[in-house]
C-alpha cells in the first residue's frame, strides 16, 4: 500500500524517461539527498562523519566505477586499487606542482588521468575475456603499485615514499572539518551518481549491458565491442580515479602505495558482489556493508558482553566476508540491491498478502 504505482499514468515518453519515473522513488531520492545534506549535519558527530559517512561515500564512488565495468559491461577487473592509486597520485602531483589549482579541477584531473591509464590497460579486453582479463587487470594492479613506489617523481622525491597533502580549500573556504569534508564528498557523490544513472539508462548503458549479456549478439545489432568495452573502461576508471583521489586527500591525508594494494581491489569487488552487480544502489549498499561490518564486529563483543580477541574479530571478518560472497553468489546474484527491490515489492502490496 505504501509503495504503489497504480494511478500514476505517464502521459508522455518524456515522463517515462525521467530519471525516477515512479513518484515514490523520485520523492524518496529527493528526501534522502535533502536529509543527507541538511539533516545529517544536525546530529552527526565526528566519528559518524569520518568513520562511516565519508568512507562509505568515497568507496561508493569506487564501487559505482567498478560496477560500470563489471556489473554493467561484464568485464571483471581486479585492478581497482591501482586505478585509485593513479587518481591519488595524479591529484597529489597536480596540487603540489600547481598549488593554485581549484580542488575540483584537481579531482577532475585525477579522474582523467585514471581514465587514460584505464584505457591503456583496457586494450587487452578486446582479445581476452573472463578470468584471463581478471589476471590482466592484476598485472596493471601490480605494475601501478610498483611504479608509484619506485618512480621518485610521483612522490616528489620523498625519502620515505609516503606523501601527504596540505590544506584543501574550495573557493577560499577551507575544507578542514569532518562536517565540511562530508558535504563536499556528498556533493561529488550525488553528481557522479546522477551522471552514472543517466549513462546506464541511455544508449551507452545499453551498449555495455548488451556486451555483458551476449557480446556476439551485440555486435550483430551494430554495437562495436571496442567502443563499448573501452568506454566502460574509461568511465569506470574515471570514477575509480576520482574515488582514489578523494580517499587519499580527504580520508588518509598521508599515504603510501600500499594503501592501494591488491586488497583494496578485492575490497571494491566485494562491495559490488555483495551490494549487487549491475545496480547503482548496490554500489552504495555494498560500500556501506563493507565499511560497517568491521565496525559492527568490533562493537559486538562488548554489546554482548562476551570475550572475543582482536585476532578472532579479524578472522571472523575474513570468514564473514568470504561466506557472504559465496552466499550472495548462490542465493542472490543481484546482491543487497535485489533484496531491497524484493522488499519494495512486498511493500507495494502490504498489508495485503497478495
Amino acid at each position, binding site marked *: 500500500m505504501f509503495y504503489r504505482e497504480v494511478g500514476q499514468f505517464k502521459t508522455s515518453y518524456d515522463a517515462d524517461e525521467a530519471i525516477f519515473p515512479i513518484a515514490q522513488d523520485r520523492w524518496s531520492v529527493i528526501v534522502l539527498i535533502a536529509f543527507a545534506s541538511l539533516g545529517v549535519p544536525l546530529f552527526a558527530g565526528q566519528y559518524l562523519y569520518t568513520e562511516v559517512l565519508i568512507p562509505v561515500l568515497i568507496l561508493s564512488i569506487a564501487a559505482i566505477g567498478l560496477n560500470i565495468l563489471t556489473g554493467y559491461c561484464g568485464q571483471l577487473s581486479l585492478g581497482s586499487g591501482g586505478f585509485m592509486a593513479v587518481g591519488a597520485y595524479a591529484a597529489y602531483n597536480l596540487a603540489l606542482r600547481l598549488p593554485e589549482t581549484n580542488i575540483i579541477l584537481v579531482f577532475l584531473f585525477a579522474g582523467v588521468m585514471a581514465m587514460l591509464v584505464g584505457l591503456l590497460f583496457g586494450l587487452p579486453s578486446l582479445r*581476452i575475456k573472463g578470468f584471463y582479463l581478471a*589476471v590482466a587487470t592484476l598485472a596493471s594492479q601490480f*605494475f601501478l603499485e610498483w611504479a608509484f613506489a619506485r618512480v621518485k617523481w610521483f612522490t616528489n622525491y620523498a625519502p620515505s615514499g609516503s606523501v601527504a597533502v596540505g590544506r584543501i580549500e574550495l573557493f577560499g573556504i577551507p575544507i578542514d572539518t569532518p562536517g565540511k569534508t562530508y558535504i563536499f564528498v556528498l556533493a561529488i557523490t550525488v553528481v557522479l551518481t546522477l551522471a552514472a544513472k543517466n549513462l546506464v539508462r541511455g544508449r551507452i548503458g545499453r551498449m555495455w549491458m548488451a556486451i555483458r549479456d551476449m557480446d*556476439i549478439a551485440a555486435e550483430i545489432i551494430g554495437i562495436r565491442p571496442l567502443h563499448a568495452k573501452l568506454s566502460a573502461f574509461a568511465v569506470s576508471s574515471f570514477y575509480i580515479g576520482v574515488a582514489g583521489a578523494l580517499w587519499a586527500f580527504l580520508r588518509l591525508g598521508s599515504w603510501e602505495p600500499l594503501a592501494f594494494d591488491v586488497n583494496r581491489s578485492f575490497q571494491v569487488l566485494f562491495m559490488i558482489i555483495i551490494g549487487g552487480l549491475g545496480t547503482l544502489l548496490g554500489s552504495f549498499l555494498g560500500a556501506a556493508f563493507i565499511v560497517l561490518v568491521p565496525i559492527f564486529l568490533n562493537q559486538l563483543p562488548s554489546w554482548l558482553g562476551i570475550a572475543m580477541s582482536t585476532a578472532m574479530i579479524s578472522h571472523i571478518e575474513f*570468514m564473514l566476508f568470504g561466506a557472504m560472497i559465496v552466499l550472495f553468489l548462490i542465493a542472490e546474484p543481484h546482491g543487497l540491491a535485489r533484496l531491497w527491490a524484493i522488499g519494495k515489492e512486498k511493500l507495494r502490496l502490504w498489508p495485503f498478502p497478495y
Partner: protein
Amino acid sequence: MLGPVLETLIGGLMTGVLYSLVALGFVLIFKASGVFNFAQGAMVLFAALSLARLSEFMPLVLAFAFSVLIMIALAYAIEFLVLRHLVNQEGIILFMATLGIAYFLEGFGQTLWGSDIYKIGLGLPTNPIFILESVFPGGLLIDPVELIAAIICAVMVLVLAVFFQVTRVGRALRAVADDHQAAQSVGIPLNQIWLMVWAVSGLVALVAGMMWGAKLGVQFSLSLIALKALPVLILGGLTSIPGAIVGGLIIGAGEKLAEVLLAPVLIRTFDLAGGGIENWFAYVLALAFLLVRPQGLFGERIIERV
C-alpha cells in the same frame, strides 16, 4: 657474468617448480569442473597449517595422513556447500565464489590453527651446495631444499599423469573435462568426479604447502602464492598439466632473471628507488604471451559457438 646468470636461472627454475606445483592444483580443478579456483592459495595455506600444527603432536607421517583427511573433508565441504549450488553458472561467477572461499579459508585456517610462523621439520639439509666450482669462481649455487622440492614435484606430476592415463577414475575425469553433459549421459557421476578432483588438488596443495612451508615456514603469507600461480596458468594454458609445469619454469626463471639483470638497468635508466620488478614482470610476461596466444602454451583452443 655467465656464472651469475646461470645461477639465477637455476634458482629461478627451482622456484618455478614450486609455482608449478600450485598451478597444478588450479589446472586439475579447471580441467574437471571449469572452475578457476582462486582459493588454491588459501588451500595451500590451510593444508600447510594443518600439517605444521599436527606435526607438533604426532610424527610427521601421521600428521600428513591426517592432513590428507582434512583436505578431503574440505573438498567435500566445498563441493557440498558451494559448487553444488552453482552448477551451470558462468565461469566468472564461479571464480568470484572461489574468491569468497579463499577469504573464508584464510580466516578459518588462522582461527583453527593460529597465525604465528610454524615449522614443518622435514629434516632437509639447508646449507647450499656448490657445483662446477672449477668452471665458475665460487661455483654455482644450488639450494638443496629447492632441489628436493623439484624432485618431489616431478614425482607428483608423474603420479598424476599415470593416474589420469591408466585408472578408471582418471579416464572418467578426462571424459568430464571434455564434455560435462556427454560424460553425465554415459553415467559418470559428476558430483563424485568433482569431489574427487577437489580432493586431489587438495592433496597437491598439501604437497606444495609442505615444500613451501619447509623452506620458509608456514605463515599467513603462504596464501599469497595463489597470486604467483596465476601468470603461470595464463602462460601454460588453463587445462594443461604440462603447461603448468613449463609455465612455472618460464615464470620462475623469467622473473628472477628480470629482477637480477633487468632491474638494475631500469633503476639506472629511470633513477628508480629500487627494483622489485619481479612481481609485475611475471604478469606482464604472461600478458604479452596471452595477447599472442590466448589459449596459452598448451591450452586447448577455445571456439565460440552461437
